């Protein structure tokens, strides 16, 4: 596999900024300064640098910022009818009964409207979960750990699938023919024999 090690720095210019704003428009994203600053702060920063302010960047992309702000206000008013601080708190407590992971990253994906409502009504997801009596730092730590565990388990399973497909358990052959794969086997299973044993155990369980 070919690796490119040197990170390439983002090349911002007016054209790139306009292209990105148009992508967000296609996605029907809320294009107000506050919202985009939250979802893509790099874009807002670049827009301010190259156009003076966010509104000017939107205008350069052919959009009417006044209209966008008015639309956002309208949407916000619609949401006001659906949510309140109490409803947000109540909903977080309900979700906490079924979800083990309340981290920001996980909740944004699984319960995006709740996280958005928490942000609108309470200021941020962090403040909202703390209002419910949870320790946010602990939640984030636990979320990261859970995600790492899920990923590690997935990678181990993928490596075993591929090992199974090889049709040989000869360590030297695999090391010579597929050095990158072999290194990963050692990394995820600590030894070749443990990987082979894990695969055999898994196949027995499947049978």
């Amino acid at each position, binding site marked *: *596999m*070919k*690796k*490119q090690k040197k*990170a*390439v*720095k*983002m*090349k911002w210019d007016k054209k790139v900024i306009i*292209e*990105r704003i148009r*992508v*967000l428009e*296609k*996605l029907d994203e809320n294009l107000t300064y506050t919202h985009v600053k939250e*979802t*893509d*702060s*790099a*874009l807002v920063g670049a827009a301010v640098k190259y156009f003076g302010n966010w509104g000017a960047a939107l205008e350069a992309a052919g959009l009417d910022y006044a209209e966008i702000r008015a639309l956002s206000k309208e949407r916000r008013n619609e949401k006001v009818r659906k949510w309140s601080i109490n409803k947000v708190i109540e909903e977080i407590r309900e979700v906490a009964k079924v979800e083990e992971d309340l981290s920001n*990253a*996980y909740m944004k*994906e*699984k319960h*995006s409207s709740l996280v958005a409502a928490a942000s609108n009504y309470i200021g941020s997801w962090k403040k909202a979960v703390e209002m419910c009596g949870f320790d946010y730092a602990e939640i984030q730590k636990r979320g990261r750990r859970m*995600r790492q565990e*899920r*990923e590690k388990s*997935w*990678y181990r399973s*993928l*490596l075993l*699938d*591929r090992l199974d*497909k*090889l049709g040989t358990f000869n360590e030297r052959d695999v090391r010579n023919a*597929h050095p*990158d*794969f072999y290194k*990963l086997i050692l990394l995820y299973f600590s030894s070749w024999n443990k990987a082979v044993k894990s695969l055999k155990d898994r196949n027995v369980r499947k049978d």
Partner: protein
Amino acid sequence: MKTHKGMKQAIKILLVDDEQDFLDVFGAILDMDGAETSFAHGYNEALDLFEKNEYDIVITDYSMPGWDGLYLLDMIKSQKPDMPVIIVSNYLNDEKTRKAYRMKADWVLKKQFAYEELLAGIQRLLRKK
């Protein structure tokens, strides 16, 4: 061109993810199936590689900083509309999936997928190309 069990020819895949572990694992196992994979850790590296090299397919993470996964998808499709692009993500909800398809993703796949599922998808997209 190599002949392998999974893929009949050496296809060139650009893998984009800000998680090195994903790149390492998929790079290694796809290569074993006859692919030639290149890595990028984000939008800039990916675009740089994409513009300098020829690829058969791009597999990119959705949840890179900002909207980088979808910006990349948009850029690739504007340069090469027929280039198959698979979007993968740790967490997918209906809205995210809809957005990716709206930006012309060829396939949107939730991470924790089975390797064979990915292989079959790659082959299906390449046949369509």
